[in-house]
């Protein structure tokens, strides 16, 4: 049953799709899926692939499907059930794509078979095609009668016309037909899969469709010969343009609503005659079937009648066709899947998880061979012969600055393997996987040639990094694409300026061009030692890296640290205050304040006003200016929020009457927007401004009338990384998000000072993210100090480590 075309790849057109998925498909088409798919332009495609989750994809698929009728593969994270579409779940796998490709071939093959056996379907009743997405009407121009078919063999081939009718396009269709020219309108019932008989309808009448309605145009099986109807057993998906080379038909003039135009602008779709098109089209164009073989007479029809048929889904009428398994595809899939699995298996670890046991790893050549079938190019990393610098690798290395690249030429550095060590158990067993992955260590293992590492040449094509700090100079090495030395990335360069910790050197296996970089620490003492074997040299480097990692980051200069401590203590006082602990509501008076007496209240009112009027508004109080720009969603201040003066303004009682509020005109808006750009440090998000202002206002107190016994939670986490950091905020947020509690309970649970919890409460209160709905809070578990204790000690040490 197979012809040579069956083994040809399906010409596939990619419709709406994310770049990420497109890259996956392109990779798949060029490797494992090569025998299944060939990517072509959409116009030439036999079938399509579309990412159904992509914005606008559904509409695009409807349009494409309705205009072309071609099948497709739909990629989606949710199950999609559409006629003539094969759903492939995301994330994509080679296996799923292969299976989909084979199914697609089956569909196309089935269609072709149907074309080759039109007679077998003549006695079958017409069936509906289920299509949830669209209602499709296909009109084909027919001869006016069977006799005219046979009597007019030399007439032009008919031009099948396909109309896509949706809820807007089909209304008031006027299919004006002459007696000689009779369109057949095939209409798919979008909801019913049941077989139906044909019936005659008057297409001159207005037809109104609603997508929600079940449209049941039944057509009797046996019909009048005088009114032939195409009884195409196939889904209309494939029907759209089936020209016949021997069945002369006349072009039928019908009035087509303008909104049935094809995307190209053509009013109706034209049949394609290119033999390279869909298999079903190949069958069609080469089909020797006579008109009467493909056109089923319809009884009880008048010449002036038009007929709507329901057609049978392909899958219901054609026995499934078994296709040969693409063993090469499967093999490729296995190789692809095996590739990276090999990277995370096969090594044992010692008791504390260090990968010191270099048990046999997959030979790199095997990996390389495997990778040649993918786009992962793991090349053997080797070292060139020394190129006569005369100086040792170590000496040269010390002369270079940070982030340089050591180019490791080919001959001597035979293997650099990314080795992931486990306990030798298999990945198939979940328990073992847990054990394995928990103890995973990744080490670079250099299996070198007898040449000393000191002989390794250094490629130094750039001298632009002389100003780079010498610290970690010998460790942090990056290889770029060409193997040339390069500056650390912008990111790593910026780390030093912005993070509290110096940027970490990065050991890297650059597999792109056979170059390798590796972490290393060269000491002065090491220069004087006798040359080590390559294995010893590398092991020493790794040991030094580990030691350095164990020592942690260097301490800051004492004076800097002292200054920071003083500042943070001062700031802490301004945010937390120094108030007595309260234990009952009656004591609240000791630490309460009236929000309406503070500038925060005025700001919130003006913010609401600005939101309502969409105006840019300015508050002026004493010598400070605050501008609220709704469009920019930003607040501009002509001072720093860290100023102690602002903290005092917030904390002190303010008469709202002396705060000047002004709506800015265009020139003033321009002025302040320029300032926003010029002074980003004084421009804040609403959330950040409200957060800090509320903290400074409350200074560890609570608004009067606060119910300190009411259980509260938070609706969502505040964006704490972009708000002024206060101690314990993350812990309090986590507690309130998971375990609702009162303002008296939470500090006790977490063993924190009340002021920390109260400060956090004020912040989230001002941000309006307090959850007080007790029904919602009931679904959350109560805090249990004894639960989750399993890792508490470990977590505690980890938190100390990462917050110091």
């Amino acid at each position, binding site marked *: 049953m197979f012809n040579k075309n069956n083994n040809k790849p399906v010409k596939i057109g990619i419709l709406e799709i994310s*770049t*990420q*998925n497109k*890259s*996956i498909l392109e990779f*798949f088409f060029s490797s494992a899926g090569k025998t299944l798919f060939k990517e072509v332009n959409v116009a030439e495609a036999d079938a399509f692939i579309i990412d159904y*989750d992509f*914005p606008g994809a559904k509409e695009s698929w409807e349009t494409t499907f309705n205009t072309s009728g071609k099948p497709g593969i739909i990629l989606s*994270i949710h199950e999609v059930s559409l006629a003539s579409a094969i759903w492939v779940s*995301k*994330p*994509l*796998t080679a296996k799923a794509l292969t299976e989909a490709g084979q199914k697609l071939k089956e569909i196309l093959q089935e269609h072709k078979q149907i074309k080759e056996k039109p007679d077998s379907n003549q006695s079958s009743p017409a069936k509906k095609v289920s299509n949830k997405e669209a209602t499709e009407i296909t009109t084909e121009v027919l001869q006016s009668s069977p006799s005219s078919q046979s009597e007019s063999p030399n007439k032009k081939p008919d031009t099948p016309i396909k109309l896509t009718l949706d809820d807007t396009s089909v209304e008031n269709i006027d299919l004006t037909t002459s007696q000689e020219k009779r369109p057949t309108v095939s209409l798919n019932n979008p909801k019913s899969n049941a077989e139906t008989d044909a019936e005659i309808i008057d297409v001159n009448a207005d037809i109104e469709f609603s997508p929600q309605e079940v449209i049941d145009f039944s057509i009797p099986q046996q019909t009048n010969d005088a009114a032939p109807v195409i009884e195409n057993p196939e889904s209309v998906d494939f029907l759209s343009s089936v020209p016949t080379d021997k069945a002369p038909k006349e072009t039928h003039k019908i009035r087509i609503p303008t909104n049935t135009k094809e995307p190209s602008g053509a009013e109706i779709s034209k049949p394609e005659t290119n033999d390279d098109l869909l298999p079903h089209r190949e069958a069609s164009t080469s089909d020797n079937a006579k008109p009467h073989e493909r056109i089923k007479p319809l009884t009880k029809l008048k010449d002036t009648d038009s007929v709507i048929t329901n057609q049978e889904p392909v899958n219901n009428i054609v026995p499934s066709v078994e296709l040969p398994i693409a063993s090469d595809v499967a093999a490729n899939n296995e190789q*692809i899947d095996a590739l*990276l699995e090999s*990277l*995370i298996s096969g090594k044992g670890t010692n008791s*504390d*998880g260090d990968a010191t046991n270099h048990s046999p790893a997959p030979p790199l050549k095997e990996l390389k061979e495997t990778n040649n079938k993918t786009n*992962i*190019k793991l090349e053997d990393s080797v070292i060139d012969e020394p190129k006569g610098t005369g100086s040792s690798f170590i000496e040269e290395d010390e002369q270079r600055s940070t982030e340089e690249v050591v180019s490791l030429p080919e001959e001597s550095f035979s293997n650099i393997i990314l080795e992931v060590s486990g306990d030798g158990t298999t990945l198939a067993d979940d328990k073992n*996987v847990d054990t394995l*992955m*928990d103890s995973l*260590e*990744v*080490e670079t293992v250099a299996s070198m040639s007898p040449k000393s590492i000191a002989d390794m040449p250094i490629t130094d094509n750039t001298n632009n990094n002389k100003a780079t700090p010498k610290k970690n100079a010998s460790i942090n090495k990056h290889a*770029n694409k060409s193997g040339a030395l390069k500056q650390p990335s912008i990111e790593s360069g910026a780390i030093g300026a*912005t*993070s509290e910790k110096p*940027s*970490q050197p*990065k050991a890297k296996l650059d*597999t*792109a061009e056979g170059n390798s970089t590796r*972490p290393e620490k060269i000491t002065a003492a090491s220069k004087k030692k006798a040359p080590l074997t390559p294995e010893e040299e590398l092991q020493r480097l790794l040991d030094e*890296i*580990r030691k350095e*990692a164990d020592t942690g980051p260097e301490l800051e200069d004492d004076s800097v640290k002292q200054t920071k401590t003083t500042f943070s203590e001062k700031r802490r006082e301004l945010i937390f205050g120094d108030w007595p602990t309260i234990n009952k509501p009656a004591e609240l008076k000791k630490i309460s304040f009236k929000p309406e007496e503070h500038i925060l209240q005025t700001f919130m009112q003006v913010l609401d006003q600005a939101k309502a009027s969409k105006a840019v508004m300015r508050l002026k109080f004493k010598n400070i200016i605050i501008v609220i720009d709704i469009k920019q969603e930003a607040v501009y201040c002509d001072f720093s929020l860290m100023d102690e003066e602002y903290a005092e303004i917030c904390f002190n009682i303010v008469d709202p009457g002396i705060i000047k509020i002004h709506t800015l005109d265009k020139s003033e808006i321009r002025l302040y927007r320029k300032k926003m750009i010029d002074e980003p440090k004084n421009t804040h998000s609403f959330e950040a401004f409200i957060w800090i202002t509320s903290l400074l206002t409350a200074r560890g107190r609570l608004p009067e009338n606060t119910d300190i016994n009411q259980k509260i939670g938070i609706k969502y*986490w505040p964006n*704490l*990384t*972009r708000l002024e950091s206060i101690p314990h905020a*993350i*812990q309090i*947020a*986590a507690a309130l998000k*998971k375990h609702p509690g009162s303002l008296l309970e939470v500090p006790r*649970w*977490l063993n924190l000072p009340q002021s920390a919890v109260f400060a956090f409460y004020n912040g989230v209160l001002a941000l309006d993210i307090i959850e007080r709905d007790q029904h919602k809070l009931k679904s959350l578990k109560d805090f249990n*100090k004894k639960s*989750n204790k399993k*890792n*508490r000690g*470990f977590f505690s*040490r*980890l*938190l100390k*480590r*990462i917050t110091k």
Partner: protein
Amino acid sequence: MSTKHKKIIFTGPVGAGKTTAIQAMSDIPIVSTNEEASDMTKNRKSQTTVAMDYGRINIGEGEKIHLYGTPGQERFSFMWDILTKGALGLILMLDNSRDNPQQDLKFYTQSFKSFIEKGELIIGVTRIDDIQKPNINQYRHWLNELSIDAPVFGVDGRHQKDISSLVQALLYSIDPGVTT
């Protein structure tokens, strides 16, 4: 001597800053398997991670936290389940400058659905300081639509403090009662 080993997984699309984030936290030079980027990835950076990134936080006395970064491309998604087994939690890094961050969020939360149902998810949105739309509120809204309750933070992967906040949020979400 304690020999506790735990792991945290960093995932997210290509160029979201997973490698940088691990680099910011790791006590050792991170081990990467980088490859010359092809296809669309090339538009974002010259090299991209295949297989995984690995970093480590040494706590002392033999205790370590392993940091794994998944490759961003979907074609390596078969590794994701393996990597997340036994993990403390998942940190999803999203790039606000990408064409459709909502789609990324949807994709990765769906891909790691089985893990998220049981474990902790923390979301860090990078480049949100430069590109303010969509903002954090929109991410919260999208998560709400997906019926996922997870904290979202704007982060700069290069800032250790930001990434540390993600890890802290993860640990405190597992056990708010832990003390330092």
